[in-house]
């Protein structure tokens, strides 16, 4: 097993890996940017090294610096988390070349699967169903038209390079194709220096369903059921669950087998996720392979009882999978809400700030993977995800009810969160019925996300709380002398200072 693991990440996922290290008795090393000096992952790690200024390009993305720290701290393995360098094959290769273990797949698997065209070729060769389509140069309009015709409208036009839905366009009919190809090509050229675009059949109102796989170095490969991640904004997931209401045992087995074939074809080792689009007829199409731990891995952990981060580390250390396909039983239902610093009612605009007050829900069926606590900073430089709230129940209904209860117990003050959005989703008929698609948000909140009006009862209680605070404070002030340290109007003081001052000055 490893001597020491360096965690090349921040926030909740760094803490998730720290906990896995603790479980396995492996010392761990955190890294942090200047903005994260007091961050929770630094507090929880055994050791921590500063790796530069706040901007990711000067800290969390600086490969050589991270490898240098690994050497300095005596780490022999690096866990990349998700995001940042997690799917960067060059980083994985550098780690390998430095004589360290990259806790993830071989760099070559990352490279192949990270290239959309290569990954697609590989999938086709492994008889994995793919969305009809292909690449063209942005200038070859004729070729594009033929291709689009073959796929059948509506089609999707997107950059070959890059990812995450950048410059993606839906074209409803032949009339719109030229403009879409030109603009996608332009954007792709300026963003990636490669103006090739990919044209593919647009699957209408698809579900986003992904299969978790795990492969060891001995040729064992197992699928661990699916996750449904259809609720997205800006192509980023917000709510995930396992299992999917849409997937029966037969479909699960078929998708699972295909997923295993797909990763095997790429020489894949470690845990990974094969993403599919599934249409209303339960036909499924290969989307891509995420060659890392997913944000939403906890829902799979809860329904399978398997600790995926533990498994990642064990596989990377050369151990065999601790389970076979037959051992995998899906039990109960788990839902994850990504708690983000963003205002869902205002087009999901990100927020930032100091955590003035923080209380996590707890109790039966509730798991919180958080990157913050009271007093933490949410810096404006990184992803808006601050925590994940996961609930588990014997069935989907209980998991939803537990989520509602847990959301009501969750208190975050200091910046805007999407807690009210999740509350709204849990109350939305389509969600409760399991009627999901990647256009869930547009379909169900066509006028934008509008949080429900608070009840009159709540409004009055809040008004009374505010008035009482003022009343009690003014009374207190009248009783306080001019220069009395012990009972100086702290609340008033706070009223005059900014909210942040509160924590800096008085969080004892």
């Amino acid at each position, binding site marked *: 097993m490893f001597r020491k693991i360096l965690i090349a990440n921040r926030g909740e996922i760094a803490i998730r890996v720290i906990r896995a290290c603790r479980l396995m008795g492996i010392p761990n090393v955190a890294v942090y940017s200047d903005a994260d000096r007091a961050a929770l992952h630094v507090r929880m790690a055994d050791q921590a090294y500063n790796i530069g200024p706040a901007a990711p390009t000067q800290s969390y993305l600086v490969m050589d610096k991270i490898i240098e720290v690994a050497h300095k701290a005596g780490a022999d393995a690096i866990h990349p988390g998700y995001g940042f360098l997690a799917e960067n094959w060059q980083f994985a290769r550098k780690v390998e070349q430095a004589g360290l273990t990259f806790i993830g797949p071989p760099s070559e698997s990352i490279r192949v699967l990270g290239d959309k065209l290569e990954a697609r070729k590989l999938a086709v060769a492994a008889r994995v169903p793919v969305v009809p389509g292909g690449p063209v140069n942005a200038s070859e309009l004729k070729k594009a038209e033929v291709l689009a015709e073959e796929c059948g409208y509506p089609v999707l036009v997107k950059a070959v390079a890059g990812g995450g839905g950048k410059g993606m366009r839906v074209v409803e009919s032949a009339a719109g194709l030229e403009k879409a190809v030109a603009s996608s090509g332009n954007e792709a050229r300026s963003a990636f220096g490669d103006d090739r675009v990919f044209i593919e059949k647009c699957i209408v109102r698809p579900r986003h369903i992904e299969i978790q796989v795990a492969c060891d170095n001995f040729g064992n490969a197992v699928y661990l059921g699916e996750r449904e991640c259809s609720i997205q904004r800006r192509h980023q997931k917000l709510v995930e669950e396992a299992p999917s209401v849409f997937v029966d045992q037969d479909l699960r087995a078929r998708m699972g087998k295909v997923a295993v074939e797909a990763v095997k074809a790429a020489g894949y080792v470690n845990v990974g996720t094969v993403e599919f689009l599934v249409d209303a007829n339960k036909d499924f199409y290969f989307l891509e392979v995420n060659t890392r731990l997913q944000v939403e891995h906890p829902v799979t952990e809860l329904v399978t009882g398997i600790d995926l981060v533990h498994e990642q580390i064990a596989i990377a250390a050369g151990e065999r999978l601790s389970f076979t396909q037959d051992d995998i039983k899906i039990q109960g239902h788990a839902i994850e809400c990504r708690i983000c610093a963003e*205002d869902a009612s*205002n*087009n999901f*605009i*990100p*927020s*930032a*700030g100091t955590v*003035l*007050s923080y209380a996590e829900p707890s109790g039966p069926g509730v798991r919180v993977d958080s990157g913050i606590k009271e007093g933490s900073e949410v810096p*404006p*430089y*990184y*992803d*808006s995800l601050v925590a994940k709230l996961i609930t588990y129940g014997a069935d989907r209904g209980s998991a939803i009810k537990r989520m509602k209860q847990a*959301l*009501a*117990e*969750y*208190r975050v*003050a200091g*910046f*805007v969160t999407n*807690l*009210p959005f999740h*509350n709204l989703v849990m109350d939305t008929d389509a969600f409760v019925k399991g009627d999901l698609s990647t256009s869930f948000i547009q379909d169900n909140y066509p006028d934008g996300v509008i949080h429900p*009006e*608070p009840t009159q009862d*709540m*409004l*009055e*209680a*809040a*008004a*009374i*709380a*505010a*008035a*009482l*605070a*003022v*009343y*009690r*404070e003014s*009374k*207190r002030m009248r009783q306080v002398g001019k220069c009395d340290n012990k*009972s100086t*109007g*702290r*609340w008033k003081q*706070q*009223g*005059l200072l*900014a*909210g942040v001052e*509160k924590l800096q000055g008085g969080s004892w």
Partner: protein
Amino acid sequence: MKYLVTIEGREVAVEIADNGEGYNVKVNGRSVEAEVVGNPSSTKALLMLDNRSYDTEVFSSNGDLMVFLHGLEFDCNVEDERLVAIRKVAGAAAGGHAPELKAPMPGLVVKLLRQVGGQVRKGDPLVVVEAMKMENELKSPADGTIKEIKAETGKPVDKGTVLVTISPPE
């Protein structure tokens, strides 16, 4: 003491009298038995209203109060009766100040979408701020006329900086 609380665009009249053990509270004229558990110097207080339990936390922010209650956040403006009287004489709007668009996060102002004097409706985009690698359209918090634009293109802004103020419609 009588207070006028402006909360979520609505006005709630709250009257408070200390009865030694707790408080006699009237909300919009209706009597409520109120008990507050918690030190006056703490932001946290447990409010018992007719035996209903409300676990509250109250922060002060730029002169207004933020009340946290059951996972929801309420911005409140509290005026005592003296202030209300003065304001009414002056004919000013409730809440004590004109609606403002504030930066919800630190960022860079990249575009001003409207000009002073323009009519806006609540939800109209006014300013674009780049933050967290995204361009974010900030929207008008209220109907009215643009009174002042404090934001400048190309300038960084802190969280909470007032970018635009709005005069309510006559």
